[in-house]
């Protein structure tokens, strides 16, 4: 489990077309664990996509990862993920499948959404909620935006960590 200031786990996960994506080669990376079936993830979704669009021009990449057990939660199936991408809901943000759930476990992701901001060296600089209130679109994912602004300016984000809010990750049942 990475703490803020430590190296974040690296990964290569497939998007809905099977193309592998990794958090490298950019000035900063937003890794957001999310899904299709959680009202909190859906309520925050547009704010995440908007910030991805806004910060892409500053050299920031955003990777959305769905780690949920699709067998028990069919709305999180690869087919359902593909349908949302085809519908344009991700607007260029790669929507990745963490089938083994190893990456969610490595990040110690708790909920959907759970947001992690990595700097250019892959160091974890922020972890937590997008902003303080899923009900209020004007919050505009300000925790993540502030964290990115700080990282791009070479500073430490404040806050560097907030409690993630949302639905628990749907872990696969162990035999």
């Amino acid at each position, binding site marked *: 489990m990475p703490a803020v200031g430590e190296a974040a786990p690296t990964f290569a996960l497939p998007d809905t077309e099977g193309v592998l994506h990794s958090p490298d080669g950019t000035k900063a990376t937003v890794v957001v664990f999310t899904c299709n*079936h*959680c*009202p*909190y993830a*859906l*309520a925050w979704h547009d704010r995440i996509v908007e910030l991805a669009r806004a910060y892409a021009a500053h050299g920031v990449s955003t990777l959305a990862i769905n780690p949920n057990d699709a067998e*028990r*939660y*069919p709305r999180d199936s690869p087919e359902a993920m593909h349908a949302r991408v085809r519908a344009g809901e991700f607007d260029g943000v790669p929507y990745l499948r963490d089938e083994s759930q190893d990456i969610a476990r490595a990040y110690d992701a708790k909920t959907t959404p759970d947001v992690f901001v990595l700097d250019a060296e892959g160091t974890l600089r922020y972890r937590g909620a997008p902003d303080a209130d*899923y*009900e209020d679109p004007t919050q505009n994912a300000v925790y993540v935006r502030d964290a990115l602004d700080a990282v791009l300016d070479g500073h430490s984000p404040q806050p560097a960590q907030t409690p993630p*809010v*949302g*639905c*628990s990750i*749907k872990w696969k049942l162990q035999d």
Partner: protein
Amino acid sequence: MRRNVVAIQVELFYWEGCPSHPRALADLREQMTVLGLDPEAIELREVETEGDAERERFVGSPTIRIDGEDVSPIAAEPYGLTCRVYHRRDGRIYPTPDPADLRDALSAAMTTSERS
């Protein structure tokens, strides 16, 4: 405030793993109070296991039933321990029912109860 003496059953099914039920309970209590119903009459039913979810036909937390009828019926959702998606009347996605939907469902049940 004078309470309406109508016999309706209000149940709130919740799963502790989803953080939305306190908000749903507060909204439900508020709407019942507005309509003159006793908010303390709400029956809280915790759903703890997948087996409970199957047995209670629980499609997510929170689920609110008035006289056994879901306040926001949905079709073809699997039963299970998860958070439930609701759509507010303005189209936004929320983890809890629109208070206006709660009020309408309560009012309809009160009317039915008064007639019977």
